[in-house]
């Protein structure tokens, strides 16, 4: 349920950006580099890419950085001293230009980081992020948000959702939260009244390709299926899918020691890697790629809904776009739904 519907002129977006910047907030938004569009810190409005279907990486790095120091330690004659992360140093970030399949992903990530333990650093980062979502007016054959509970104009996870809703390029602004209201209050003149526009006609058409409940039910009977071997034969065993995914949250803890002091670092990890489950004994419970691929699908479409009441996939299609072997997850999910058990 949105708090307010407003209207913002196309040309006013740049002014909004400037006002947010002058409020000493960090703006992170989509920007092109080496022909790839990624989220990065934006200094000038012109760095923002507006015309894109999807960024290569998700926006999760703002709340869950790929590499994050969680503590420093040092040993001296008095013993050991440990200094944790200074939560006061966490910056205020405005995430600009996030697609609905990414804003929804933040909810799924939060479910993981608050499952049996409330992750203080993650939650703090998350609470300092204001999300300015932008609806999709275009989709490609990798997109499947509508098959996993989303849609190209979903407001879920956005503090304000902008939808291009007018032939002259103006935007409907759906202000969803207190945080959104606070952003809008920085520039009250820019948010015009009368936001009663029907946005549905301006959204991308993303046909429903499968039913995730059916996939979940099928998976319960497919653990021992030979289909995992067939599906994963071309998988090269890299971690690209996990690292571009908005909901993959697995991490590794590394200690980097320099003599008597050092740091503990949390960094992304991926279930696609053979060493992910390698035991000290040398035994590996997931010793072949088919078992790792099965884990990826099971985790997102069976274990997460079982344990966290959320699915681990938003249909953004990033994993399929990033895969060097073209493991198209949509095709695989359809074949799981159609599998004869």
């Amino acid at each position, binding site marked *: 349920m949105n708090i307010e519907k407003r209207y913002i002129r196309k040309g006013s977006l740049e002014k909004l950006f400037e006002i947010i910047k002058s409020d000493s907030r960090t703006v992170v938004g989509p920007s092109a*580099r*080496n*022909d*790839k569009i*990624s989220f990065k810190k934006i200094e000038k409005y012109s760095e923002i890419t507006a015309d894109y279907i999807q960024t*290569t*990486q998700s926006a999760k790095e703002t709340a869950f950085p*790929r*590499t994050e120091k969680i503590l420093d330690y040092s040993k001296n004659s008095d013993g050991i001293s440990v200094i944790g992360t200074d939560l006061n140093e966490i910056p205020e970030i405005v995430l600009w230009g996030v697609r609905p399949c990414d804003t929804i992903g933040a909810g799924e990530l939060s479910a993981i980081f608050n499952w049996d333990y409330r992750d203080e650093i993650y939650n703090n980062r998350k609470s300092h992020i204001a999300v300015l979502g932008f609806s999709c007016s275009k989709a*490609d*054959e*990798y997109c499947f948000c509508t098959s996993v509970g989303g849609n190209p104009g979903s407001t879920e996870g956005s503090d304000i959702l902008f939808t291009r809703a007018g032939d002259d390029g103006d935007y409907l602004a759906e202000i969803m939260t207190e945080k959104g209201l606070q952003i809008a209050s920085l520039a009250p003149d820019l948010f015009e009244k009368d936001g009663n526009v029907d946005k549905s006609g301006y959204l991308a058409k993303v046909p429903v390709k499968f039913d995730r409940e059916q996939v979940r039910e099928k998976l319960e009977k497919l653990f021992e299926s030979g289909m995992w*071997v067939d599906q994963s*034969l*071309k998988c*090269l*065993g*890299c*971690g*690209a899918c*996990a*690292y*571009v995914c908005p909901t993959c949250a697995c991490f*590794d803890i*590394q200690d*980097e020691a320099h003599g008597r002091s050092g740091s503990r*670092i949390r*960094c*992304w990890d*991926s279930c696609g*890697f*053979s*060493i992910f489950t390698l035991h000290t004994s040398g035994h590996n419970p997931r010793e*072949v*790629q*088919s078992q790792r691929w099965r884990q990826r699908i099971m985790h997102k479409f069976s274990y997460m809904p079982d344990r966290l009441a959320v699915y681990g996939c938003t249909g953004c299609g990033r994993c*399929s*776009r*990033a895969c*060097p*072997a*073209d493991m*198209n997850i949509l*095709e695989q999910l359809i074949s799981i739904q159609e599998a004869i058990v």
Partner: protein
Amino acid sequence: MDDLIKRAKELLESSRVKVVIGYENGTDGKTRALFAEKPGDADNLVFNSRCIMNLAAYVTKKEIRNKGKMALIATLPVMRAVIQLASEYQVNDDNLLVLGITPESKLIEFKDLAEVEKFVHQFQIEIDSRNKEMLDKIEKMTPSERWDFWIQELSPCFKCYACRAACPMCYCSRCTVDFNQPQWIPVPSHELGNLEWHIMRAIHLAGRCIDCDACYNACPLAIPLNLLTKRMLQDARENFGGYQPSLKADHLMSTFKPEDKDNFIL
């Protein structure tokens, strides 16, 4: 195309090979690997200019090798990879048959790897003009500019290791980065971790990289990491008479010749 499908079917029907590794149509105009095990599977084989993945990355995978003798549809870079792999005892005439595709897109079936080698040796490995230009640009930089260039280019790397996974030469069952006692290369993808990983990767490919660009094509972030290996190829040409994969195990970087230059020793 038709003769490719026909030949793949014959090989599978006669059980001369157990699997034909080729390309099929993938998503969004891309192609991807196809593993044809039954003659009917071969109907999906395609070959066109979009078949850029180096399929030699699959011939060292246990899951594929366990199927039995493999036939590999191989363009020139794939053939080069096969010869390098053969010289490292990873493939041989007993487990691999090469169905070559010439630069003119003609099918050419090789009796054995020696014939593949002969074919491969008709061509020099040439660095394309765009990358050559880039190498020249980097060469002209001062050391500190070059340092900044690489720190900048490598900074997006999140260590998904797609470059390693797609590289036909990266077949080690356990990569140096996966060792943690001791931890040779830092795991985090911070500045030092990324730098050490990419230097280590490039150095392990010295005198082995066949310049297929599989690493670059696989990189989801389009990091130009292939410039490192291309530069090594240039150095090999200037200092050691050039690199050409060969069945003889006289590897460029591990074989000393009295006439080798030593002007790189400071």
